[in-house]
């Protein structure tokens, strides 16, 4: 069952909105502002699913994913990318590198949780 979500995005407003929405839908959620922070966080917080913004400074979503995969506790945790590039080819590429799917940015806040749940169910 999906109960704990880690949301990684460097835009503070975007993250605030996402956290409010995800929480109000009844999931647990923790926010990290960078890939580095996410890597440090998964030591103590073990999410069922990770939503990763693709465009972040220092470490982008792809680099973060490959670092996360080296950590035992999140080796196999499903990951969804949040990205401006969400054409079919892009999504195929994300799946090839180990994500379960992608959510296009800008996303519609009203269906954010639905989309996350659907991607989770579809694995």
């Amino acid at each position, binding site marked *: 069952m999906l109960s704990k979500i880690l949301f990684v995005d460097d835009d503070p407003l*975007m993250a605030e*909105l996402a956290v409010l929405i995800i929480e109000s839908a009844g999931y647990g959620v923790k926010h990290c502002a*960078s890939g580095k922070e996410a890597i440090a966080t*998964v*030591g103590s917080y073990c999410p069922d699913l990770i939503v990763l913004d693709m*465009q972040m*400074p220092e470490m982008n979503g792809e680099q973060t994913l490959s670092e996360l995969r080296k950590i035992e506790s999140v080796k196999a945790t499903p990951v969804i990318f949040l990205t401006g590039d969400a054409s079919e080819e892009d999504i195929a590429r994300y799946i090839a590198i180990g994500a379960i799917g992608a959510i296009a940015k800008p996303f519609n806040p009203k269906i954010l949780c639905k989309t996350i749940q659907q991607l989770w169910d579809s694995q």
Partner: protein
Amino acid sequence: MTMDDNQDDYLQVIQQKFLVKLQENHHAFQVFLGKLPNKSYTMSECILLKDIIHQIAGSGKTFGFDEVSVYASKIEERLNILIDNQEDSRGGEGLEIALAALIKISQELIQNNNTKSGVNIEKSKPIEEKIQYQHTILIADDDNLVTELVSNYFKHHNIKVLSASDGQTAMDTIETAHPEIIILDVNLPKIKGFDILKQLKQNADTKDIPVIMLTKMDNDKSVIEGISNGAIEYITKPFEVEKLSSTITSCLQLHEIKILIADDDELICKLLKLRFQKLGYTVITAKNGEEALRLYKESKPRIMILDIMMPSIDGMAVLGQIGDKIPVIMLTAKSQHDNIMSALEKGAYDYITKPFNADELVAKTVGILKRHHKNNG
């Protein structure tokens, strides 16, 4: 209340925050717009403006402001052309119109919001008092638009940015406000950046504050001068706000890590302190075992470098009390083989024999800190 109602409420709160963000940048937008006709803008301004516009373009639509997103994307596109072809000014075409349109639309949105919600965004003097700033930094640059854009950006990351447009103001601000990090442009009016740096390093109150220098591209000489004068990092102009942001974040993180050095040889303490400070760490030193134990309890260092031969309480006794609660590297004379063995048994992490190579000790310490950081999350 249904879930959807809840979400509408949340969206409204975020929408207002987004409008506040737009409002905060209005002044900067207008200043930049004023510079467009005679091309008196700088590349630093273009790049910083692009960073902020990029965020607005990316999130505007999600927050329900499609039009803002559309114009912001147009502005971003044209700023990119301007930045890529620095000599060629064609990017400016259409930029003026799009920027003016964005300013107009956001003003209308803010006014609509004010009448609808009864919250006056311009007058609510928004978050200034409400934000719980976690850090205070100073940026000294004579380009006011640059400091304004940087300050607007960091406000939303809970970092308060003080600004100074000349060297004298920078010195005054540092004295009164004690920022945690100082960002200095090399070419400041009144007092040049390097002269400020030198003065800061000579003053006991300010010598431990990490300094980042801003230099023009390709100026190796100034980079070397900066580093040798005690700057911990340099950033070339024009810079991206994200680059500055990640540098500042790592500086703040490193600065929170304390290294305790306990040795009765003051020269060793001084030398090591300087080396670790250059890397951005905070260093505390103790002249004897008693002081070391007191500082260990008071300052909660992350790692300790401990000389065995010290007056009053010696290193072994100190280690006996600390054990393996934090990593301890023992400093010992070559002949003390027995001491080394019993130190390791008592929980010491590692040892180095005197006379030692400072590079090796620094590398060892940094390695241990990194491994510990990883393991402890």
